């Protein structure tokens, strides 16, 4: 599959109230930049009938009111906006450190990930905690960051059947993506570790530590360090 930005956006019908607009089909910083610029432009102009714009890795989902507009009209308007797109200022990213205790009970799939790539568990930890990951998208559950830039050495398919309950803080891998489960929820990612940080605190004015466009670094910690941080976070 060719990388990079589509010459023309691809429109997909998502039910009777959604229009999915794809700008590429790879995880690519350039494509994501385009997504974020388009999101800002659409939100600024908010054509009639658009209720919500949800940015993702390489597409935006536009939710509309079918009583007010149609996908055909929206398609025209979005295409026109895309043509006018240039010199949009995007806020500078911040870098957030996430401490992670890898393996053991916190990362029940780390042995599988290591074995399927002929690596040791130590190597998996080293490779996973090396990059500074771009947050392409937040979703699935409150504050779940979808991170790009996972080393090819760790690409691992999702579980055949998702788990019905994954503990909060679990760090996982799904194909070429990695991310963190901020709250306990069902999920199909291969779990390799867990962070003691609370990633979603609805009682705070800003419930989230980061947003799409920011960057995350994973810092390996021991289980003692995990316990200490978990206690601090609970107070």
């Amino acid at each position: 599959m060719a990388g990079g930005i589509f010459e023309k956006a691809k429109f997909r019908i998502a039910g009777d109230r959604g229009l999915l607009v794809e700008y590429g089909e790879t995880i690519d910083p350039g494509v994501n930049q385009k997504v974020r610029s388009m999101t800002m432009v659409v939100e600024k102009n908010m054509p009639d009938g658009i209720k919500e714009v949800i940015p993702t890795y390489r597409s935006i989902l536009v939710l509309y009111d079918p009583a007010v507009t149609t996908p055909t009209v929206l398609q025209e308007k979005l295409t026109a906006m895309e043509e006018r797109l240039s010199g949009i200022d995007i806020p500078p990213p911040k870098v957030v450190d996430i401490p992670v205790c890898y393996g053991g009970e916190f990362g029940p799939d780390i042995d599988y990930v290591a074995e399927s790539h002929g690596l040791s568990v130590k190597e998996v930890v080293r490779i996973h905690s090396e990059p500074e990951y771009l947050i392409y998208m937040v979703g699935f559950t409150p504050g779940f960051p979808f991170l790009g830039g996972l080393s090819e050495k760790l690409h691992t398919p999702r579980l055949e059947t998702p788990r019905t309950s994954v503990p909060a803080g679990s760090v996982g891998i799904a194909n070429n993506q990695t991310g963190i489960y901020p709250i306990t929820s069902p999920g199909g990612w291969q779990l390799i570790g867990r962070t003691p940080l609370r990633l979603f605190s609805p009682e705070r004015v800003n419930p989230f530590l980061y947003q799409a466009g920011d960057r995350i670094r994973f810092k390996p910690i021991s289980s003692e360090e995990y316990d200490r941080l978990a206690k601090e976070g609970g107070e």
Partner: protein
Amino acid sequence: MDTFLVLTPGSYSTIQDKGRFGYQHLGIPISGALDTYAYRIANLLVGNPEDSAVLEVTVVGPQLAFLKETYVALTGADMEMTLNFTPVECWKSIRVEPGDVLNIQSIRSGCRGYLSVAGGIAVPRVMGSCSTYVGGKIGGYKGRPLIKGDVVQTGRGFLLTSPKQLPKSLIPRYSDEIQLRAVPGPQDDFFDEGLMTLFEAEYTVTNNADRMGYRLQGPPIIHRDNVPRSIISEPTIPGGIQIPADNQPIILLVEQTVGGYTKIATVISTDISKIAQIMPGNTIRFKRVDLDTAHAIYAENERMIRQVSNLFSNQQ
């Protein structure tokens, strides 16, 4: 003002309104009443704006002691209900007095009931909505289903001058065999035979069926050769029919924001209300409709609700 005390909570009773919009990009799902038809009518029956907060009850309803004089109405699932041990009807406004006990028992058909109270249930808004999102522990009553001893408040309402009842012809009937209309896409191009399977076969609802989604069981839905089995994760919308690696479809609902499996088709928004009333063990058939038809059905449903709204306001 304190309006009712929870004597028994029922199996899963949460406060819901039309949903929490505008936060899906942060991973906050829409939530909200799953059966929007029953929800809106419930509010209209007690003279509320149709987007007021109500109690969504599931399979076994709660027992509530009322602390003030007001009107209530139960819509959605056909549930046995008594007021001070005397049977009362669904889809109808009921006057309650302080000390009255409303007992919503088990379902005769359907799955979820909607109890409206005049003035609307009053809880703090979280991110613009009263809806409970239990998974995220936010909204509604302390972010959780009701438990025994909770005291629930309502907003300032007014007492109806005459009770209201929905015309029988507008009350949905819930069957064990359900037809859901769906528009192909967003990833219909990942399937060829799979689309035929989806629209011809019969699927059984498994026990894994909640406000996040309904897992179905039936003939496997197979992707075309040479297409990826999963996609780069993208936002989901209620009704999306996702095909995971085990080829058994999952209908995504209101407590989900993104997913990484392909969605072969999307149940039309009007039929989400039908899904809300489906129980594990029921069977589903999908009927293919095009987008224009889906929009016409949407318009017709809105027209019908406006008609009910007008009918009720003329009765005032």
